C-alpha cells in the first residue's frame, strides 16, 4: 500500500513537481533580474526576498517529492529568519536613506576607486 501510494504520489507529484520548480525558477529569476536592474534599495531588498522565496519553494517541492518533512521544516526556519532579517534590512535602509537623502544604491560606492 505504501508502494502504491508512493508510486501514485510520484506520478501525481511528477507533473506537479516540475510546475512547482518552474514557478520557483521564475520567482528566482524575477528576483535576480530585479536585483540587477533596479537601483532603489527597497526594491532590491524585495527582490532578494523573491529569490529567497523561489529557493524556499523549490525546497518544499523537493521535500514533497521525497516525502521528507525536513525540507519543510527548513523553510519554516527560513521564513522566520527572513522576517527578522527583513526588519533589520529595512532599518538599515532607513538609516542609509537618512545619510544620503536618497534610496539609490549608487550613492554608496566608497569601496571602489573614486
Amino acid at each position, binding site marked *: 500500500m505504501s508502494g502504491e501510494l508512493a508510486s501514485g504520489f510520484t506520478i501525481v507529484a511528477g507533473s506537479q513537481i516540475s510546475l512547482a520548480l518552474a514557478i520557483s525558477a521564475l520567482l528566482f529569476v524575477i528576483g*535576480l533580474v530585479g*536585483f*540587477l*536592474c533596479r*537601483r532603489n534599495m527597497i526594491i*532590491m531588498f524585495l527582490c532578494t526576498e523573491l529569490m529567497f522565496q523561489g529557493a524556499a519553494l523549490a525546497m518544499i517541492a523537493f521535500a514533497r517529492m521525497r516525502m521528507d518533512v525536513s525540507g519543510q521544516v527548513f523553510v519554516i526556519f527560513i521564513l522566520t529568519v527572513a522576517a527578522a532579517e527583513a526588519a533589520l534590512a529595512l532599518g538599515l535602509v532607513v538609516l542609509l536613506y537618512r545619510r544620503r537623502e536618497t534610496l539609490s*544604491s*549608487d550613492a*554608496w*560606492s*566608497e*569601496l*571602489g*576607486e*573614486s
Partner: protein
Amino acid sequence: MTAAGSIPQAVIAPELAWVGLAILLPLLSAILCALCAALRVKSKLPALITTVALAGSCFVIVKAYFAYSGPVEVPIFQWITFEWGDGKFQSFTADCALYIDSLTLYWMLFVTGLGTLITIYASEYMEEDCGKGYSRFFFGMSIFLFSMGALVMGDNLVMLYLGWEGVGLASYLLVGYYYERPSAVEAAKKAFIMNRIGDLGLALGIFMLWCNYGTLQYGELFAAMKDGGQTSVDWDLSVIPFLLMIGAFGKSAQIPLFTWLPDAMEGPTPVSALIHAATMVTAGVFLIARMYPFFELHPQALATVAWVGGSTALVAATIGMAQYDFKRVFAYSTISQLGYMFLGLGVGTTFGACYHTLTHAFFKALLFLTAGAIMHGFAGQLDLRKLSGLRQMPGWRIVSWTMLVGCLWLSAFPYTAAFFSKDAILFKALTSERGDFRFLGWVGLATAGLTAYYTFRVWFRICAGPVHYEAGPESHDQSHDQSHDQSHDKGKPDPTPEGESHGAFHPHAPRWAINGVLVILAIGAVVVGFPAYGHVFAHKENWVQAMMASSSAYQGACLESDHGTGAAVHTQTVLGLDPHTGLTIVGSTASIGGILIAWYFHLYSRKSADQLRAALLRRWWIRWVPICMENRWYVDEIYLACFRLPMWIGAQILNFGDRHFLDGVLVDGLAKFPIAVGKVFRPLYSGALQSYAITMTGGVALVLAWVTWIWLRGFN
C-alpha cells in the same frame, strides 16, 4: 729621565673623603635645579641653590688647602673593575678616587672661587629668564662645575675623561642656551664637534697610555715612568704626548681647532666668562701640566706645544685687533692668552703657564662680566663704535673702572699681576738655548704690544670720550622692555610715561650683584699679583712656583728652580742687557706703546683710525692685512672649503644613492610589483552594488554551465 723621580709619591688617605664634597655639592645642586625645572619654579631659587652649593664647594677646597701636607690619593668607591687574568695588562681599574696634589688644589681654588662669584653675577644677569630658562641655566652651571671638579680632582685619566666630556656637554648646553636663535644652535654644535675632534686625540692618548703602562691611575703612571726608566724613546711612547696634545688644543682653542671659541660667545655672558675664558678652556693647560712628565718623553712634543701656542697667540691677537664686536675681541684675546700659556708649557715653564692661567682667569672673567653688564644694559649692543663715554654716565662708573683694571691686566701693564705671569713665560722663552724658542719669545713680545692695543681700543672707545650710545638689537623686544620696566618700577615710580619708554631707549645700569662681583674680581685680579710682588720685592719664594714644583707639573730638565733662588747662570741676554731688566723694559715698552697707539687712534682722534684703515686698503701691497684680519684670516672659510664642503658633497652623493638606488630601485621597485598586480584587478571593485551582483551571477552561471556540460558529457 729624572722628571718623574721628583714627583712625590702620593699617600693613600681615605680620611680625606670629605674633599669629595667639592664635586658632590655641584652635582646635588644640578639635581635640585633639574627638579626646579620640572616643578616650574618661577623664583630665583635655582640661583640660590647653585650659589650655596658652589660656595660650599669653594669652602671645602680652601679647607683642603689648609689641611694639605703632600700628595694624597683619596679612594671613594670602586667604579670600574675588569679582570681577565692575573698579568699586568690583564686588568683594568678606574676607581672613583681623588688625586690631590698642589696642582689640583691650585686649579680648584680658582675654579670654585670664580664659579661662585660668576653664579652670583648670573643670578642678576639672567633674571629676565626667571621661570623660563633660569633653572636650565643654573643646571648647566652646576653640571659644569661638577665636571670640572671630576676633571681636575680625578685620580685617573678615566675620571679626567669623564670630566672632559662633561664640561664639553655643559659648554654645548650653555652656548646653545638661547636655542630659538639659529646662530646659537649653530655655535653650540660647532663647539661640540670641534671639541670632539680634540677628544678623539685625547681618547687615543689614554688608550696608548694603558697599552704601555697597563694603568691609568696617576700615581701608578708616574711610578711606572720612574721604574721603567724611559731611556729608549720608541714610537708607542713618543706618540702619547702628541695625542694628548690634540685633546688639549681642542679644549683650549688652539690652532687648528680654535674657531669654535669666538662663536661660543653666542651663549649668555656669565657662561663666556666662566667656561670660555676662566676655567674650561684652561683644561688643556691642566692636562699638559698634569701629564708633563710624559711630554718630556719626546723632544719635539714640547716644541710643538710651544710653536702652536706662540702662533695662536699672534694670529688670535691680529684678529682681535680688527673686530668691532667687543665680546669677540675678548674671545680672541682669550685664545691669544691661552696661546701664551701653551707657549709657556712648551718652553718649559709650567710655573709661568699656570700663573698666567690664574691671572688670566681673574682679569678675563672680569672683562667678560663688564662686557656682559654693558651688553645687558644697552639691550645687546656689542658694537664698540656705537657706545662711547660710559665713564661719565651715572651708574656705569664701577663698570668702567673695573673694566679699566681688566684692560690694564690684559695688556700686561707694568707691575700688574699679568705683567709678571707673562714675563715668566717670555723670560723662559727668551733665555732658552733653542733659537726657535727665542724667536717665539720675540713673537710673544710683539703679541703683547698688539694685545695692549686691541684691549685699550675697546676701553677708549666704550668707556672714554664723549657720551654717546645706541640701543642694541634687543631694544624692540617686548619681553625685554617689560622686565626692564618692572625692575625699575620696584624701587621708584618711573617718571617717563609708558608711551615714551618704548620710543626712547634708556640704558639700565647694573645693580648690586653685578657691581659687587665686578669689584670683588677687580680686587682678586690685584690679589693674584701678590705672589709675584713677594718674589720681586721681598725675594720670597713665589707661591705659585712652590705649588707647581711639588706636583706632576714639575719639570726636571729645566732651570726653573734656579730662577726661583736667583742662582741662575743666564747664558742669554735680552738686547744686550741682563734678561730680567731687559725683559721688564721691553715688555713695559710693548704694553705702554700699544696703549698709547690705542689712545691716539681711538680717543685722541677717532677719525684717524678710519683714515688709517682706508689708507691701508688703498695700497695693494698691504691691503690684504686688514682684510685678512677683519675676516679672521679666512680660517672658517678654509675649513668650509677643505672639510665641510667635501663632506657635504659626499653626503649629497650618498643621499642621492640612498634615495635613488636603495630607496628608489630596491625598495620602491619591489613595492611596484604588488601595485601593478593590484592595478589589474582594481576595475572589478567599482563600488557599484550591481556590478558585484552581476559578477557574482555571471560566475555562478559559468559554474553551472560547466557542471552541466560535464554532466551531459558523462551521460553520453
